[in-house]
């Protein structure tokens, strides 16, 4: 059944300093997508129905994480793609880039502990009305690893209240590893087609690696891309 479903093409953008791009490509292939590498200097996206901004340390995290990568030529194409409703998932550094680009609300600051955290964390699924969490159980718990030094998501009280009211807070830490406001681990934009999260779903797609909960999020993206590919075909 699954084998007969079309494999939607999903682009994974490599910035100078990305280091989880290959894991993202591999995970997407494993889960039923045709993963397409995209170089950050490309001004146009190839024919894709979804985009992943992977983790890493784009431009050495100079100035602020994601602050320089957001000006990559490919990011203009990503913004256009998102504006047309295309699903975009930013993981870790990809989340930081999307916030810096203004495609997602908030900003990411150094962890409250000042320590790099690298471990599995439990996430509560707050919303399932996004393409990325549509396969999750409402209120369910996902175990997915984090590995970051600057994952402390910040929003002002006013912005947070607005996001809560709009249902844009999608994932929360059960035991906050970085000091983020309101334990936020993942958010979506108002149109719900752009999501960012600090944990790495692409590192949790096989029980052999401790958890396959990340597959739920990537499969959600793939399903959304598949629908989109069918609609636009």
């Amino acid at each position: 059944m699954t084998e007969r479903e079309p494999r939607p093409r999903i682009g994974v953008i490599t910035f100078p300093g990305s280091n989880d791009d290959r894991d993202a490509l591999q995970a997407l292939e494993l889960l039923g997508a045709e993963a397409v590498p995209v170089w950050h200097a490309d001004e146009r996206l190839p024919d894709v129905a979804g985009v992943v901004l992977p983790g890493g340390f784009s431009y050495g995290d100079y100035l602020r994480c994601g602050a320089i990568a957001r000006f990559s030529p490919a990011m203009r194409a990503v913004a256009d793609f998102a504006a047309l409703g295309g699903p975009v998932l930013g993981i870790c550094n990809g989340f930081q880039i999307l916030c810096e680009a203004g495609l997602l609300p908030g900003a990411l600051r150094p962890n409250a502990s000042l320590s790099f955290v690298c471990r599995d964390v439990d996430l509560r699924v707050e919303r399932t009305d996004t393409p990325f969490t549509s396969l999750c159980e409402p209120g369910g718990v996902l175990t997915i690893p984090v590995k970051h030094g600057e994952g402390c998501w910040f929003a002002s009280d006013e912005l947070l209240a607005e996001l809560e009211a709009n249902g844009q807070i999608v994932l929360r830490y059960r035991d906050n590893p970085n000091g983020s406001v309101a334990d936020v681990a993942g958010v979506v934009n108002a149109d719900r087609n752009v999501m960012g999260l600090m944990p790495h779903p692409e590192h949790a797609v096989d029980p052999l690696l401790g958890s396959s909960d990340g597959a739920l999020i990537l499969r959600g993206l793939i399903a959304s891309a598949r629908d989109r590919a069918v609609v636009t075909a």
Partner: protein
Amino acid sequence: MRATVLVRPKPGILDPQGEAVESSLRHLGFPVGEARVGRVVDLEVEATDAVAARAEVERMCEQLLANPLIESYEIELEDAQ
């Protein structure tokens, strides 16, 4: 014209670096109050008058040098002559 941009975490924004510096200074016997850590960017700006230079550097701050959500900035200009 030389410009110096001072970027600071806005008041109320968690600044773990500042907290670490503050506690280290106290540890060394300096009775400091709050310490906050920001960033300094020195620039050479190609503008002849100060008004144009300031406007240019302000655009740089808004677009790249500071994230207005979490940081404030201050611009100091110094004539190269």
